[in-house]
């Protein structure tokens, strides 16, 4: 049987990565809903669903390995394969971070993980995280560099929220004690890292398409 043509393998890699990003978007959306409404069963679904994201990563790595082995691609094709391998690592991590959010809910059940003061901020962080992951899915499928550049700006909004939450925590009037502060610290960090990885996926695509590090792209 002749090997699958490289163009077809590259198309499959994009498609699988897109599926991975969409799955990560779904995971963080469900994890956020579970967090806001203390829905422990939904949190358990997120925890159980992570295996699917891990399986997609393994599939991408195998396919990428085959592409390197059978076609020894060069230039832009080589960059596309390597960036798919690296992006799959980032998206797997996004899935893990959604899972970590779900684990906090699970750990605190039947109590509330989230004090009222920061509820709206986490709702917004969740919304941004879903948006970033969906945009990353679009970028890996379309290889559109302009959309990829947009992710950086979306991430700035996440960083601003992250800083805001620390302001609330550090305020002398914080009434919820240390346990809640520790949970909120970690939760905020999970969302911020989720967003960072989505940005890295976009940057990988920019690199694959243009051959340049994103910092060299005028925005």
């Amino acid at each position, binding site marked *: 049987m002749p090997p699958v043509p490289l163009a077809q393998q590259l198309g499959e890699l994009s498609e699988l990565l897109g599926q991975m990003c969409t799955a990560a978007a779904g995971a963080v959306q469900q994890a956020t809903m579970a967090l806001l409404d203390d829905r422990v069963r939904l949190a358990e679904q997120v925890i159980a669903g992570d295996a699917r994201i*891990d399986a997609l990563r393994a599939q991408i790595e195998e396919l*990428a*390995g085959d592409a*390197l*082995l059978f076609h*020894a691609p*060069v*230039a832009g094709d*080589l*960059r596309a394969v*390597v960036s798919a*391998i*690296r992006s799959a*690592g980032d998206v*797997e*991590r996004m899935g*893990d971070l959604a899972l970590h959010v779900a684990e906090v809910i699970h750990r605190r059940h039947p109590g509330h993980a989230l004090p009222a003061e920061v509820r709206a901020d986490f709702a917004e962080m969740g919304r941004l995280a879903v948006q970033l992951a969906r945009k990353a899915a679009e970028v890996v499928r379309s290889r559109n560099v302009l959309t990829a550049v947009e992710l950086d700006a979306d991430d700035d909004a996440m960083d601003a929220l992250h800083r805001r939450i*620390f302001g609330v*925590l*550090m305020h002398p009037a*914080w009434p919820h*004690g*240390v*346990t809640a*502060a*520790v949970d909120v*610290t*970690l939760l905020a*960090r999970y969302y911020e890292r989720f967003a960072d990885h989505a940005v890295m996926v976009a940057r990988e695509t920019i690199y694959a398409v243009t051959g340049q590090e994103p910092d060299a792209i005028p925005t």
Partner: protein
Amino acid sequence: MRDAYQEQLDSLADSLAGMCTQVADAMEKATRALLECDLQLAEEVISDDLKVDEIRTTAEEKAFALLALQAPVATDLRIVVSAIHGAGDIERMGDLALHVAQAARRRHPSPVLPDEVAPYFAEMGRVGVALAVKAGAVIRSRDLMTAAELESDDDAMDDLHRHMFTVLMDRNWTHGVEAAVDVTLLARFYERYADHAVAVARRIVYVVTGQMPGPLTV
């Protein structure tokens, strides 16, 4: 021709092992800066992180050149792909050492850590540095025994990490929320640093055996 190829593979491993040495050094200094409130040392770690990023770029260029010009197969292909993964993990270890240094700088001249947790961070620093050094050794030797050692060293880090939370959640914690937030994040930086060292070792096990010994994101 074959010799030049082998040299390229060795040079790639050297770059990665060199990165491990750099990030071990960074974490050693960052931990000292944290424990001794040494601002100058913290600044040094922060500015040296660029060196790690530079070696990563060089390592990736070497990996791309190998893939494009030599079209490696079998074990050699696995070596190059694992180097691409490893470079990402080790760069992240450098970033985490940088975060520790930034915490030391942010609170200077006040100590970041309450006295009662300082010894645990000294120990997390020691375990973290040892893991980075071992990861570098595994990259050079591809020795499976040493790779397996990283797993048990990482268990020690996880125990320390869990213990930190027990201390924080204790009702006798008297240091307030700000210190608790710092300790939470710092403990996480050390734990993630260790996880990345383990991921590097697992990739090497995969190179040698063709089997992944455990999940890649720990």
